[in-house]
């Protein structure tokens, strides 16, 4: 069991390091094709991190949205523009300062979070345990996440689906407009 935990930590460290490297690469590369391709690699690595964190459903979403749909959409957007990134018009000093400040505040904020997987957090002692106890009697769905998404907050999910559907229509209309003008 000890080796399993060590392996998890090791895999996480390697994957997160590679993620950081790929992010730096995405920033550095000026060719937008390469950026799209590297973003696909980022999504696959992120999905692997999610798997190691036991969030299999999130991993699935990350892989299909990040590596599948996003690649195709970014490519079709790229088709309407140039393939080389233009040199920046302004220096990046102020944005860099803002981003570093925000990052520092966020990292400071993580010190207030409970440790990963602790049992006595509000997340695990409040409604979470209640859902775990009642979910199967009330809904008959064996997967707790699915029962919450589709039954307890079904209207919320319906709203989300509507938003995504509308966004999809919007993207299609944008691409359509370019086609008729071209």
């Amino acid at each position, binding site marked *: 069991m000890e080796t399993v935990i060590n392996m998890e930590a090791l895999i996480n460290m390697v994957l997160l390091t590679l993620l950081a490297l790929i992010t730096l690469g995405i920033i550095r590369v000026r060719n937008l094709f390469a950026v799209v391709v*590297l973003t696909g690699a980022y999504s696959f690595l992120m999905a692997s991190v999610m*798997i190691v964190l036991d969030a299999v459903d999130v991993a699935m979403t990350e892989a299909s949205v990040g590596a599948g749909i996003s*690649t195709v959409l970014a490519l079709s957007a790229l088709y309407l523009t140039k393939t080389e990134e233009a040199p920046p018009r302004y220096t990046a000093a102020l944005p860099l300062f803002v981003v570093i400040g925000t990052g520092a505040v966020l990292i400071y904020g993580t010190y207030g979070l409970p440790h990963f997987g602790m049992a006595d957090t509000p997340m695990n002692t409040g409604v979470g345990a209640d859902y775990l106890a009642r979910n199967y009697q009330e809904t008959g769905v064996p997967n707790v996440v699915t029962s919450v998404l589709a039954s307890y907050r079904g209207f919320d999910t319906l709203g989300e689906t509507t938003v995504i559907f509308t966004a999809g229509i919007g993207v299609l209309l944008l691409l359509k407009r370019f086609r008729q003008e071209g």
Partner: protein
Amino acid sequence: MMFAVAILAVLAALALAVVRALAGPTAFDRLLAVNSIGTSAIMLLALFGFLTDRPEFLDIGITYVLLNMIGTLAVLKFFRYGALGHAQDPERDEALR
């Protein structure tokens, strides 16, 4: 334990593929490396499932395989034709001539 060894090998391959994805002079090199990263992610998923005694995750591996190929082919199609949905398009053909 033996899965740990295999996972180490896959992680090493993953790191090397990332190096090529970052270094690759042409976009095709990057694409090849990313394809390899996708395969490594699938093997990592499967091996990690066995390492933690829950190999039921493999369904997601199947999804990854298909996504990996669709992503690669979409980019390649874009490269060859400059478009993804290029079927019969007289306007574009005019522009190319």
